[in-house]
């Protein structure tokens, strides 16, 4: 991998050298060269514009519309936002549904962030520093993607025989004499949700962290060891700070996905645990599109604030 990244820098320098003599040539060429980066970025920009910016703009606009049980009508009303937060201030310190839902969603965001970070970092560390050959690294990487090999439907069904009341885990524990009655909290609980999410999303931590760790100059680690640093000191002083960009990117992935996830929470929580995504889904099912749009806008704002805070911690452009 280090060789690979070295060769990338080599090509870059070559490209720069190539461009230098071209400078003196015709102005059309220069214009073309100036335009080139824009053209290169255009396809992605177009995709973003069509499939991200426009729908998002529509969502924001619709969030101010009015609705009946079978139609939505253009208007400019703050009613939808008012409905979402109705009673939220009045009932304090008792939490209203919206606050409670957001807090529950945030809670999962934080816990799953912590669990995926610990597991993801450990796995990435192992892959980067203990696995020597690229081939084995690739094989292990593929193993990390196993949770994505099956559909959510299959997973949903397969958790029941594992974690259920009469499931494998409970039966094993009971036959070992650890417990007398089956543990009910294994399935359809916070625990189940966190387990399933960690299982699913750790990969999103592993990949960027692994990438960051691979870029660390091995000489630095050697130097640290020569200077008498213990393994733990090397980890905290050299590896973690230099792995920060990867940790950050992974964190953004995980936090944003968890905040919008309603399928995993729904299935593993037995649909008894609220999530913002589920609320939006229910509202869409009942054709309360403006209300759902308003909720989506609030969720987006909440996630953006989170991402902004994370970016404050690391100057990602400098570090990449």
């Amino acid at each position, binding site marked *: 991998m280090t060789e690979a990244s070295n060769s990338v820098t080599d090509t870059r320098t070559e490209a720069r050298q190539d461009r230098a003599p071209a400078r003196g040539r015709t102005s059309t060429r220069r214009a073309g060269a100036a335009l080139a980066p824009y053209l290169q970025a255009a396809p992605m920009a177009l995709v973003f514009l069509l499939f991200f910016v426009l729908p998002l703009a529509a969502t924001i606009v619709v969030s101010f519309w009015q609705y*009946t*049980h*079978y*139609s939505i009508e253009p208007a400019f009303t703050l009613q939808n936002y008012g*409905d979402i937060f109705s009673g939220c201030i009045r009932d304090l310190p008792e939490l209203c*549904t919206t606050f*409670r*839902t957001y807090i*529950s969603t945030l809670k999962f965001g934080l816990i799953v962030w912590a669990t995926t970070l610990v597991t993801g970092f450990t796995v990435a560390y192992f892959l980067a520093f203990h696995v020597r050959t690229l081939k084995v690294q690739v094989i292990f990487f593929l193993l990390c993607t196993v949770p994505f090999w099956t559909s959510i*439907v299959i997973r*949903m*069904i397969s958790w*029941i*025989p594992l974690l*259920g*009341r*009469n499931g494998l885990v409970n039966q094993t524990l009971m036959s070992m004499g650890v417990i007398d009655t089956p543990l*009910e909290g294994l*399935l*359809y609980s916070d625990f189940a949700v966190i387990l399933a999410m960690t299982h699913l999303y750790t990969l999103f931590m592993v990949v960027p962290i692994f990438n960051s760790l691979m870029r660390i100059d091995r000489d630095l680690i050697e130097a640290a060891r020569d200077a008498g640093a213990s393994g733990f000191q090397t980890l905290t002083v050299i590896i973690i700070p230099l792995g920060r960009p990867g940790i950050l990117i992974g964190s953004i992935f995980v936090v944003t996905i968890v905040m919008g996830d309603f399928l995993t929470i729904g299935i593993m929580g*037995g*649909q*008894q645990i*609220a999530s913002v995504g*589920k*609320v939006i889904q*229910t*509202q*869409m*099912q*009942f*054709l*309360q599109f403006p209300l759902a749009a308003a909720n989506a806008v609030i969720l987006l704002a909440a996630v953006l604030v989170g991402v902004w805070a994370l970016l404050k911690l690391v100057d990602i452009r400098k570090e990449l």
Partner: protein
Amino acid sequence: MTDTPRKTGTTRRGVLKGAAALAGTAAFPAPFVHAQERVTLRYLSTAVNQSPAIAEKASEDLGIDIEYIAVNTDEVPRRVITQPNSFDLVDSEYFSLPNLVPSGNMKGMDANRIDRIDDLATVIANGTVDGEQVGWDGTAPHEVLYLENQDSTTFATEPTEWITLIPTTYNADTLGLRPDLIDKEITSWASLLDPDFAGKTAILNIPSIGIMDAAMAIEARGDITYGDKGNMTRDEIDFTIEKLIEAKRAGQFRAFWSNFQESVNLMASGEVVIQSMWSPAVTAVRTQGIPCVYQPLKEGYRAWASGFGLPRTIDGRKEDAAYEFINWFLSGWAGAHLSKQGYYPAVLETAKEYMEPYEWAYWYEGKKAEQDILAPDGRLLEEAGAMRDGGSYAERMGSVACWNAVMDENQYMVRKWNEFIAA
């Protein structure tokens, strides 16, 4: 979970035929070639209602191809309202009509073009069984069956020539239970909230249906008497949700479910031992060899009915084909096919003609099965000697207490329901 559109009827041969027909039309653009083309009807409904056998048989008998679009219960009305061009025939719940009809996306069906319009089951046509009125709480089908005229967006109070939905299937739902895991006799909806079953019950997370189950249970427990539990006032909704939240916080529910397969999994795995179920779900649990009883209760059943409707945009040959298909549907074969899965069809007499006398006696007359009862696909459902839970058609449909409903205060109800889920 059932959102993937399922297509039937697209075989290699079909495609070749189509290609040949297309080539033919291009070469000889004569009108008669056009008229020979087969019509495809895009049939929107939940997956439970989409039997491949019916599509196959209709294609054979009528030369009309049925392309199923499978979505879940809540998605059906949403599709009708937001994408009325995306289907030719919808099989919708009657309780969705108060939302669908005002949208103007549905077209009244001409009663004169339905051959068996006078033979529709009375429970749908006027809310009676054998002349006796059943419970009308909720959105009873006869209340939303007729329109003032074809393009009307309001319901007619008297029978007219314009029909909203022609019934496909209907039934009476009650609690399903695992007799091997319950050592109590269950006679009332109140058992859903019985603390003895804490952590072992479930209800639907489809608000229109779930609230009705909850209302049946709460009323049965004696907490409240509703004016019309299918059209609650805000106070009644508040009370109901409050009671549900109490039960939830006390750990009464193991899980909520929102589609057929989830309810089957919960029951079959023993995670849940008592819950409101759909009749074919009970059958599905039983065919896995797991005992499951569809328990009749003293308060009666929560009924539902589903029927064919036409989108406003349909016309010409497609419309003719839709009427042809509906008439075929009511003519017996489909009715018998559905009856053998535990549903009831719109026209009983014609279904009877396509069933063996012993099958009719088992499914409709509440008699002991003289022979083994087989599902339409040939699997064994019940051994000889078994009796249908709940008895005869008249006993079951006659004991309907309420119907699935969309209330006037629906938006408020959905908001409160979300609070219950979040609590």
